[in-house]
């Protein structure tokens, strides 16, 4: 039985954590939130120099040639630091999409730039409110030109390369679109101002299929992969929100006692700890399935994603509440977690959506 990360993987995680503690403290997240920058270029450059962007990209495409397990641990640390960088978009979504579906020429062309961070990727799936299933897309690719209105697109206005979900005829497909004529990315304000959201309007822009373009199942598989990695980012955030809150309730006195000595608080923190722990175990399993391309991925990814979304959401809202009035101020850091948790829970589809998928997949297994 070896259901854990190995020593080399843990050493990599420690190195990432130490770097981000130094280079991406919460003040960096706040700087992006309060300033004009759409992301932290210094942290992004640092991540590229340290080689994390290409963690799971093979060496022949300029990556480090490690695997999904290593990438999951990097994601956890990015989440813990609330690093304001387009990591999920460029790495879990666009790089993974290229690796899974791209043609050799596409991989050779784009992966080295993505690994080096000189090109940022964004994944354009949504077309307004609700949850898309790839079947009813209005964005159309025809004769090498793509037209559609995608919103929201995380990191859409800082990206130079888009993987766009679209239709060719009546079939869902994925297309690659670069910046250029007919591509208009407009920033839209985000619930989490430390991250960049955009509207992507495509009007006859030049586009090519990603490999053979995939199909609905391929899109679903990509989302499962990204969901697993995103779960680790959420776990990191949940852990950190929990740790800061624990410190605070030990330090803050009311009625002559630490806030954390009241059972009303202790029991809620115990429950939160349990939820994070359950999310962690589910996420480890999904990482194992991801690394091994196992048949278990659809169920495991949905469980990990739903559990980690709920755990981070709860950790962040408890963080605000247990800080009392100060927790509701702009000045306190609780807001950074509260906002990031909700953004991450909604990106890739809400936890309600993933729970629904989870049960449908369980039913499919049960019928098989």
């Amino acid at each position, binding site marked *: *039985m070896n259901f854990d990360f190995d020593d080399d993987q843990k050493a990599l995680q420690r190195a990432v954590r130490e770097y981000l503690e130094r280079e991406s403290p919460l003040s960096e997240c706040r700087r992006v939130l309060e300033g004009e920058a759409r992301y932290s270029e210094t942290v992004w450059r640092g991540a590229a120099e340290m080689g994390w962007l290409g963690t799971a990209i093979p060496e022949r495409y300029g990556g480090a040639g490690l695997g999904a397990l290593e990438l999951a641990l990097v994601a956890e640390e990015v989440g813990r630091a609330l690093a304001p960088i387009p990591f999920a978009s460029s790495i879990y979504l666009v790089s993974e999409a290229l690796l899974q579906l791209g043609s050799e020429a596409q991989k050779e062309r784009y992966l080295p730039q993505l690994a080096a961070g000189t090109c940022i990727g964004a994944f354009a799936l949504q077309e307004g409110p609700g949850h898309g299933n790839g079947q009813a897309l209005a964005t159309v690719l025809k004769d090498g030109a793509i037209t559609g209105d995608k919103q929201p697109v995380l990191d859409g206005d800082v990206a130079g390369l888009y993987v766009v979900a679209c239709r060719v005829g009546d079939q869902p497909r994925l297309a690659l679109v670069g910046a250029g004529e007919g591509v208009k990315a407009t920033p839209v304000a985000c619930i989490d101002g430390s991250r960049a959201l955009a509207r992507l309007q495509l009007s006859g822009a030049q586009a090519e299929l990603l490999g053979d373009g995939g199909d609905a199942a391929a899109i679903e598989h990509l989302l499962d992969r990204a969901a697993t990695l995103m779960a680790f980012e959420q776990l990191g955030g949940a852990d950190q929100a929990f740790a800061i809150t624990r410190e605070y309730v030990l330090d803050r006195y009311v009625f002559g006692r630490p806030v954390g000595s009241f059972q009303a608080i202790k029991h809620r923190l115990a429950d939160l700890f*349990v939820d994070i722990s359950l999310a962690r175990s*589910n996420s480890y399993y999904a990482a194992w399935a991801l690394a091994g391309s196992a048949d278990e991925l659809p169920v495991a990814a949905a469980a990990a994603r739903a559990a980690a979304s709920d755990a981070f959401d709860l950790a962040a809202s408890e963080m605000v509440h247990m800080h009392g009035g100060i927790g509701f101020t702009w000045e306190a850091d609780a807001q950074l977690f509260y906002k990031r948790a909700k953004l991450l829970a909604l990106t890739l589809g809400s936890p309600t959506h993933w729970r629904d998928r989870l049960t449908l997949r369980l039913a499919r297994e049960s019928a098989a």
Partner: protein
Amino acid sequence: MDFEDTREEAEFRAECRAWLEANASERAPGSEVGMSARDNETVERAQAWQAKKADAGWACITWPREYGGRGATRIQGSIWNQEEARFETPPNLFLIGQGMLGPTLMAHGTEAQQTRYLEKMLRGEEIWCQLFSEPGAGSDLAALRTRAEQDGDAWVINGQKIWTTGAQYSRWGMIVTRTSPGAVKHKGITYFIVDMHAPGVEVRPIKQINGGSSFNEVFFSDVRVPAENMIGRVNEGWRGAITTLMNERAAIGGGGMGGGVDTLVRLAQQVPIDGRPALEDAGVRQRIARLYIRQRGVQLAGLRSLTALSRGETPGPDLSIGKLVGAPLRQEMAAFALELLGPMGAVDDDAVGDRLWQQAYLGAPGGRIAGGTDEIMRNIISERVLGLPPETRVDKHVAFEDVPTGRKS
């Protein structure tokens, strides 16, 4: 990351399996190992199986060699348990003795006590029960009032214990008693070994919500216990009791789920809502997903614990959540299954159905109380794992006889 045995573990597993295959038959899928017996015949079968294991060196394998065990590692203990669970065996009536009381005697007992009791405990010749809870002392165990008073070379016990598993077929019990009511609560407690066949010991079964009788009340009327049966010293019994409780939580830990989420999914595929399978209802799917995540999370936490054991490490504190998650989960799962069944959920009749969810529902509340209530588990997690301050105690510096206990009306 994988779920395979190491080479040594695989070899050990093969060794376990070879002996089990030669001595038992495979268990039918879905059946569980019992933990109690209703009749003497079952007790005898359980004792015969235990003796057979002991003769072949497969009893209490994680006990040190000096006490008759194999000195096996915890991962080996776990492998043995997994393998034994695959075979049809009589109920395990020895867990309280071998898992909790034996280790307490090893830590706090005299050499004479260890020599007299441990081998027979290991062989299953003598079954043991744990006499801790009282009507006025459950979560607050140290509020116990069963008295032990010295009389020459012996101690005389008077009082009542409750929730005692297996008292009706136990040869010995380990009992915590009040010896100094004038001292503060935790400092007037003494731990004894008591002969369950002694005059003045009376065992009465308790009928539970689900109609079963897994537990007993035990009454003590002038029961004489020789001084040599004291475990540890006078008024220092709390330390030994803590050792027992720590081993109890380790023993309860994992545990099977009975009817799990997969059974629930099949039920939701079968029962209708407005003429369509319940599974087509989005609300039903949400609830099943939430239950699955918790069930799977606990199972996977168990695998992470085994990984730590396999590496010779102590499992991390976040893996100690099994009971707090598992016990309420069983209750919620059963309650939801009854809801899916609709009005038929109320039918608890062998002639009509298998009563699986009805019995699970009626039995479930006990799991949330026994061996540490949900609230005690939350206290333990928040204090010992998270390092939050202990509960404010109003009884800490007061003589026990001045502390209100039990009900006041």
